[in-house]
């Protein structure tokens, strides 16, 4: 770490019509993170600088941005990691609203399309509190750590470079589906969704999403690959396909 007294901070300013990097000189305090520097600019140099943030402790996932082109949470990125000069821009996979704020509403629509947690009727009507073992719930706990910063969506080349938002729901929602599919009490079969609307086949496991996840969720290894295997077993395994035709088990499928 190097001690610096001023930061040369370039922030992308603009809207849907276009914009450019604007340079600001920010006095540095010990332990400052990028979000602090951006908020200093807002309070002192650019009152209408648009930026989202809430908890400032990497728990809410609001302050996602691209720092020197890399998707990160601004509240979790110390400026000491950079040599006195850095740039901040909005996430590129989503339409810009203004400055660092992007329109992420597509993600909320996708979430609505995923059938929610569905326990069995027996569990639902049971008057006894449920019993589950720690080792059984730990698997989904990893997925439920997701703070919906959408950095994984931002970095995913299917969404970012090819803009296939209608075809692939993106890593965030593979994690979401995994959290439901692997929940010990969930009985719904979301494999038709995975094959269809969720578009899991579009993922070619480059693991970029895992790399940017601030919660260190093993998105590719623990969520996407097991889901791909489930789907392949269902639809593309010849032996299983034959066995199924001879009378397979019934699973609840979404209406």
């Amino acid at each position: 770490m190097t001690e610096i007294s001023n930061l040369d901070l370039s922030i992308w300013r603009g809207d849907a019509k276009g914009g450019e990097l604007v340079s600001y000189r920010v006095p540095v305090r010990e332990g400052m993170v990028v979000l602090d520097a951006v908020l200093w600019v807002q309070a002192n140099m650019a009152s209408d600088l648009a930026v989202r943030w809430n908890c400032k402790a990497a728990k809410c996932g609001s302050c996602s941005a691209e720092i020197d082109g890399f998707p990160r949470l601004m509240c979790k990125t110390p400026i000491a990691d950079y040599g006195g000069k850095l740039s901040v821009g909005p996430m590129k996979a989503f339409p810009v609203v203004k400055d660092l704020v992007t329109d992420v509403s597509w993600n909320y629509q996708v979430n609505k399309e995923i059938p929610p947690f569905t326990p069995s009727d027996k569990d639902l009507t049971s008057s006894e509190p449920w019993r589950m073992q720690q080792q059984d719930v730990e698997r989904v706990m990893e997925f439920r750590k997701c703070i919906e910063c959408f950095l994984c969506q931002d970095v995913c080349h299917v969404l970012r470079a090819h803009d296939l938002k209608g075809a692939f729901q993106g890593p965030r929602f593979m994690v979401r589906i995994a959290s439901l599919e692997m929940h010990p009490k969930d009985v719904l079969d979301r494999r038709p969704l995975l094959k269809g609307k969720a578009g899991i086949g579009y993922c070619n496991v480059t693991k970029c999403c895992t790399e940017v996840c601030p919660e260190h969720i093993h998105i590719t290894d623990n969520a996407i690959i097991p889901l791909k295997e489930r789907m392949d077993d269902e639809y593309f395994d010849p032996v299983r396909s034959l066995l199924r035709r001879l009378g397979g088990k019934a699973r609840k499928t979404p209406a």
Partner: protein
Amino acid sequence: MTGASYETVETDVLILGAGGAGLRAAVAAAEAGARVLVVCKSLLGKAHTVMAEGGVAAAMHNVAYQDSWEVHFADTMKGGKLINDWQMAEIHAKESPERVLELERWGAVFDRTWQGRIHQRPFGAHTYPRLAHVGDRTGLELIRTLQDRAVHQDGVEVHMEVTVFRLFKAEGRIAGALAYRRADGSLILYRCSALVLASGGTGKMYRVTSNSWESTGDGTALAYDAGAQLRDMEMMQFHPTGMVWPAGVRGILVTEGVRGEGGVLRNKEGERFMERYDRDRMELSSRDVVARAINSEVLAGRGTPHGGAFLDITHRKPDFIKSKLPSMYEQFLKLANVDITKQPMEVAPTIHYAMGGVRVDAETGASTVPGLYAAGEVASGLHGANRLGGNSLSDLLVFGKRAGEAAAAAAKASPGHAAANLDQAEVEQAIADLMAPLARPAAESPYQLQAEIQEIMTIHAPIVRDASGMQSGLEKILELGMRAARCGTGGSGTLAFNPGWHTAHDLHSMLINAEALIRSGLERKESRGAHARSDFPKTDDELAAINYVVEKTPAGMQVEAERRPPMPDYLADAVQRSYARYTPEETE
């Protein structure tokens, strides 16, 4: 006429805030058959509830079989130094287990005991291990579960990044609200038959706080302006353990779970100083006591290099720490370059939670204005003079549900109220007030004024207060109010996502809350819970039955002392009874 046009949106129940209380209210109101619209200042799922770390308190007796609603009730009342609304405390203690189990049936995943039940961890001033938790990210689990439940429920709609500016009444009842979209400054006139405030707290009026930009006390201010009474406004909780270093992260919360899992506090001389403040409960004393203890150590010159105390959990195994406190481990490693499995943390008190707020009816969350309800941090009563850790998440669930149901019933009872005639002049005036700062962008900067409010509150209404400090603080706040009424936006006149303009309006809310806190604080001439006074250092038993109630009058803000009815005998007995101490060896 101002010329600004607005869109009109009608619903049965309008809910302000999409944290735990707002979402739980939305689910309840929709289940009762109402059309529900949730309005929130941020994106859905980002509300302050995600910051809750330690857990949700509910007497499920999964870990300590001795636990019961009576003990939870007694702990809550004693923690609140007996000025709580005892009826709320009773409802809360009785209903929270059911609300937690219900969350599990909606998909929430809690840590388990070896028998597969929901695990419960010990926490400050709870007699028994009582907090259902998920590592140290319980709030996230709660909000995500409620969020999914709400968005998949028919009849619930959510408007994100919309700020409500003013409430309107028709025929004496709440009938609507004027709001603006943060993204483009366009206006919405909401029409509703009932309105639930679930807008959270007021911590942003202090400089060192665990609260986000959102916690500007909008709900209490909107209610106050609409004529509703506020209560216990002097009761503002300092959480004992916020980060103190480096400067950039000062105030960020360090969960009480660290102490719940065995963390100890030491001063710079290595002394476990809680011995001198609460020998029985030590680090797990109530928050007001621990916060003042750290403050006293620092004032006595025994503080750490950065002015706090050491919080040490290194005696636990690294794997244990990483599994029970994963986000704390990550937070210190990333932000302070401290490995908490090897080094102690440095902590100091940080503003955390408003016990005071809108005065509500215990059973329904109804405020003193017809059609206006409140639940969660914006409401008051449950926590009295000091909130116990874990009681806020259970508060949200229990009273969010009740307020949602009551609002839906009220909407059903007065169909067509959402279409009642509003006073058009009032609406036009609200629009003019909302737009005013944009017409004078170069006037005084709202960011500057916000920093000054924080400075005044930090100096004049600190952890230990006195009359002369508060009096001069009040004068400064009132003077600042005049400047805020004329302030600009910091330089820009744009409607498009203009935080300077938004901040200009946040000032109004913050100033009402600041004034109410100081005026109520001046009236309470004793030390009780979070309200500590150097000029009245003792607790006055006479004042245990008194709450201070704030109301808007033509002459300005008035504070009245109000006497609570005494508790019925069975509750008084529950408070006075002594309960067996918890020892893990006997139970596990």
